[in-house]
């Protein structure tokens, strides 16, 4: 959450896409990990796929 937007400035393409790309990357890891390995792979998947869900909840909470 950069402070710049509050001054009315536009966000750069990089600022807009950083979080979405990170989330996309984490999601891909989550989708693949459990497919490649049991045990540790499952845990990586659970943690990775929990991140987008948790991000949503945090954002909804913060915007209130």
């Amino acid at each position, binding site marked *: 959450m950069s402070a710049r937007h509050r001054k009315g400035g*536009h966000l750069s393409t990089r600022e807009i896409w950083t979080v979405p790309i990170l989330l996309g990357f984490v999601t891909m890891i989550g989708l693949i990990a459990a497919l490649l390995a049991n045990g540790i792979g499952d845990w990586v998947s659970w943690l990775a796929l929990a991140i987008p869900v948790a991000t949503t909840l945090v954002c909804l909470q913060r915007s209130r």
Partner: protein
Amino acid sequence: MVFLLLLCLTGLPLIFSHEIDHWLHDVEPAPVGEQEGRVSVDRIVDAALAEKPGDVVQFLVADPDDPRVWFVRLGTSLRSADMSAFLTYDARTGDFLYDYPLGEGFMDVMLRLHVDMYAGLPGTLFLGAMGLLLLVSLVSGAVLYAPFMRKLPFGRIRYERSSRVRWLDLHNLLGIVTLVWLFVVSLTGVVNTLSIPIFGQWQATELTDMVARHEGGDNAQEASLDAVLTSARWAMPDRKLSFLAFPGNEFAGPHHYVAFMQGKTPLSSKLLSPVMIDAGSGAVLETGELPWYVSALLVSQPLHFGDYGGLPLKILWALLDILAIVVLGSGIYLWLKARRTGFETWFARVGADRNGERPASESGR
């Protein structure tokens, strides 16, 4: 859009179909002490045939998660795509455990609505086309994300603004968060809708060639199933049986069994390798691999169902599905708003559509 909402809603209970099945009908085989033995499979298949006189055994199916059971799939004919019964037996005692109810119950309705809307292959292919539309709309949604987010930090919902703005922000947040997951689930769903043509292609080419290489030798004698299974295990010792197609079945030859063997690692357990076995002598005729397009289908299945990482993965699948439902719902809402049409006019359009007149635009976002 409405079809996609239907897919997401019916898909939600289907994520847990295995758990719901176990909960609805207790199919857990009673543990008989520490007993490890295996009863003759011929005896189990004979018992299944006696259970359903007049039917034939199409497949013998193993439970990937539970070596204590065998499933016997019967049909009214060997080539029939439909099954007439799916019976569960205790692999250690040969006891009959369960006759899976076919074509009834809540989960079956969910499955049919999700898979073909009771319209067979055309219904499945239609839903596949809807999935393709979803992929297109995901791309267009991602393209539109940046212009809407020029002045807004990630994840901010402007609760203080009008309901349209609020829903737009929510649509953008949930849409971008679920984007990759929804893209993968849609893509693999589309691949799944092609499963009949994909297997059909394999049957028409590689399986037909395989059968042609081993024609003749019409032995009247019948090898025992135990011998057939032993042969299959001997041919691929580092793999285990997923299912066995019986002679005359579309997945086998006229006088040949085909054992489909799965690997023992998470990824290779999703892939299958065929072993063709002579129905007369029980000898291995040929082993092979399935072509890339069948493998692509087989890998698509877990990525669509979310059934490859235990219950926590299924719960996450359900949560992401719920978020996707909100994305679709808000997408419909925003689309209606953008068109400056109220629900009344929209319902009037839907009514007109039902009466045979098609509205000017319907597949928009």
